[in-house]
């Protein structure tokens, strides 16, 4: 049980696809002008990732190595088409807002990367955990970015108009703001990582100092 939990948690922060590995960036910047869009995109992506990883890890021993990439692409493209059609049918406004980025899930490097490096080497259950971890890792970053951009760019916070419409900073709702907010997200992640590394280092040096003192006392 612990093993599955570790695989799941790995994707959330330590190997977060967006903030740490930095793949699959396109969709994360383009759709995050609104929280609903970010949420929709994250869920669509998680679904495709989950289904592709499960299917490919079930058939991983049957897929010949030399043509594995085309097979992966076909599997991913099929699930993407399913999501695309479902969203067009049941969530037409969301599907319209995201436009071409739903079919573009096919070429999202996160899916290809995880399928190639994880699902083709592990069992279905582990792959499902990995897919969920990576998917939610992607989802929360998307929600975070879109929360900031929606609040500053159009003054809306969870559907409430917090900042009056004539004093919002449209910069954040437009393309440049996407780059800017994402850059800041990476900077904060890096800073947190540094703090943690420094603390670990300090603890280690304290221990060795204590050890040395102990030996000296002897």
């Amino acid at each position, binding site marked *: 049980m612990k093993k599955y939990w570790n695989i799941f948690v790995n994707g959330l922060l330590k190997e977060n696809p967006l903030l740490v590995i930095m793949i699959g*960036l396109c969709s994360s910047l*383009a759709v995050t002008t609104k929280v609903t869009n970010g949420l929709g995109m994250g869920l669509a992506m998680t679904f495709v990732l989950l289904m592709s990883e499960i299917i490919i890890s079930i058939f991983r021993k049957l897929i010949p190595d030399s043509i594995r*990439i085309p097979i992966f692409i076909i599997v991913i493209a099929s699930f993407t088409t399913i999501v695309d059609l479902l969203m067009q049918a049941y969530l037409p406004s969301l599907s319209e807002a995201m436009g*071409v980025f739903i*079919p573009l899930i096919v*070429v999202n490097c996160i899916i290809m990367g995880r399928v190639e490096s994880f699902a083709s080497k592990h069992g279905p259950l582990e792959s499902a955990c990995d897919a969920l971890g990576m998917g939610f890792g992607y989802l929360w970053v998307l929600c975070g970015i879109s929360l900031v951009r929606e609040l500053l760019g159009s003054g809306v916070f969870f559907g409430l108009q917090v900042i009056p419409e004539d004093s919002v900073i449209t910069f954040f709702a437009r*393309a440049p703001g996407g780059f800017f907010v994402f*850059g800041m997200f990476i900077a904060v992640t*890096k800073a947190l990582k540094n703090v943690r590394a420094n603390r670990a280092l300090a603890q280690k040096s304290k221990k060795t100092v204590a050890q040395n003192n102990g030996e000296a006392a002897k």
Partner: protein
Amino acid sequence: MNDLVKIFIKSWLVDNVILIQFLALCPFIGMTSDTGKATGMGVATSFVMVLATAVTWPLYHFVLQPLGLEFLETLVFILVIAALVQLVEFYLKKSAPALYSSMGVYLALITTNCAILAVTLNSISYGYNFIESIVYALGTACGFLMSMVLMSGIRARLKSAPVPNFVKGTPILFVSAGLLSLAFGGFAGLIK
């Protein structure tokens, strides 16, 4: 003719593929560490982009549409792109080894470049005819190449710039990309 020029300018500057539409960010961040690399990637991608549009447009209008299989477009287009990349790779390997050795590395990465798939899908959904689609792909390709080269220039400067510790590394890249994108925002309204 006028329309074609409009489509070209729009896809090249006004709706710049990287800076305004956020497509193909992976090569934009990953491959712009020096100008040679950026140009190589830009040229290779541009070439495949135009070629892919020239293949997928007839495929959609003469095969998928008559058969009522429009819903398969994503699947078919990505396979066409993957196959095209392979073909171009084989062809270059045989006929132009020098060009292959300088471009080969980038070719493999192009299959998962979302700008190409987006261009082929958009030229269908915008309702362009064949010539317009090609011009649209050409304009997008020029925009891609230009942004890549611009970014590699900025990165060369960043190497010797006193960057605050907090944003060192990738964050400053995104901030400069944001500023570049802000500059491109000035082209909005150029084409009505």
